C-alpha cells in the first residue's frame, strides 16, 4: 500500500470521476504538468488514471489525483518543493527533446528544399 495516506495532505475533491478531478486540477493550479499513468510521486505512489494525467502546482503544493477502487477519484494536495522541482526538470527535459527532434526534422527539410531549389535553377538555366 502507498504511503500517501500517511502523509500530511489536504483533500479538495472526493469520490468523483477522474475527468472531474482532472478539470479541478487544471482550473485551480498555477502550473499544470501532464504525466503518463504510472508516474511515481512521493516515493512509492504510482499515479493511476486516464491519460492525460494532470498534476498541478500551487505555491509549494502539488495537486494530484488519487484513485481508490471502491471509492472513486480524490484530489489531494501535499506540500513538496522536491516533487515540484522534479516535475519542472522533467518538463524541461521533454521540451529539450522536442526541440532536438524539431531541429533534426528542420535540417532534413531544409536539405530537401535546397536540393529541390538547385534542380529548379538548373532547369531555368537550360531554358
Amino acid at each position, binding site marked *: 500500500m502507498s504511503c500517501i495516506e500517511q502523509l500530511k495532505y489536504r483533500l479538495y475533491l472526493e469520490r468523483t470521476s*477522474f475527468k472531474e478531478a482532472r478539470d479541478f486540477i487544471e482550473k485551480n493550479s498555477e502550473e499544470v504538468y501532464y504525466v503518463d*499513468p504510472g508516474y511515481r510521486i512521493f516515493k512509492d505512489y*504510482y499515479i493511476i488514471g486516464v491519460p492525460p494525467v494532470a498534476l498541478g502546482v500551487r505555491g509549494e503544493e502539488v495537486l494530484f489525483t488519487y484513485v481508490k477502487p471502491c471509492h*472513486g477519484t480524490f484530489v489531494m494536495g501535499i506540500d513538496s518543493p522536491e516533487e515540484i522541482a522534479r516535475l519542472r526538470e522533467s518538463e524541461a527535459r521533454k521540451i529539450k527533446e522536442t526541440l532536438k527532434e524539431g531541429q533534426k526534422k528542420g535540417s532534413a527539410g531544409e536539405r530537401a528544399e535546397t536540393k529541390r531549389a538547385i534542380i529548379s535553377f538548373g532547369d531555368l538555366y537550360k531554358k
Partner: protein
Amino acid sequence: MGCPEVPVQISIVIYLAHRLERAGWDVTVAGTNAPIRLLRAADPEKYYVKKSVDLDWIIQEIVEKRMDFDACFAFMHSDAGMAYGATFSAISRAKHYAVVFGRNAEALGESIEYPAEKIVAVATHNPGPLMRKIDKVVI
C-alpha cells in the same frame, strides 16, 4: 479486480482464469484486498487460480519493468475501475481487454477511450451474459 460490490465479478474472474488455464495460459489474478480475500475463500486449494497478487504491487512491478504480460483483462464497473484499466493500457505491452459489468455497463463501456477490446454486459447477479461474451474472446 477492484471493489467486489457487484456479485458477478468473482465468479467471472474464476471462470475466465479457468478458461485461460485450460487454453494453456499462465494466469495471474491481481486485485485489491477485498476481492483477493473473496477469491482465496472461494478457491482455497488454488484449483482455479494458482497465483493471486496485490494490484498496486503489480502496477509497481510493470512500471519498473520487472514484469509484464501478454494479455490483460481489466474488470470494471465504475469510473475508478476504468482509470485502473487505462493505467494498465499505458504501462503494459499486453493486449488489453476491458471487462465491463454492473448496472451502468453500457455507459461505462462507451466512455472507454484507451485501446482495449471491450467485453460489455449489463450483469450484476446473473453471470450468463458476461460468460457468453467471454466465451467468444477466449478460445
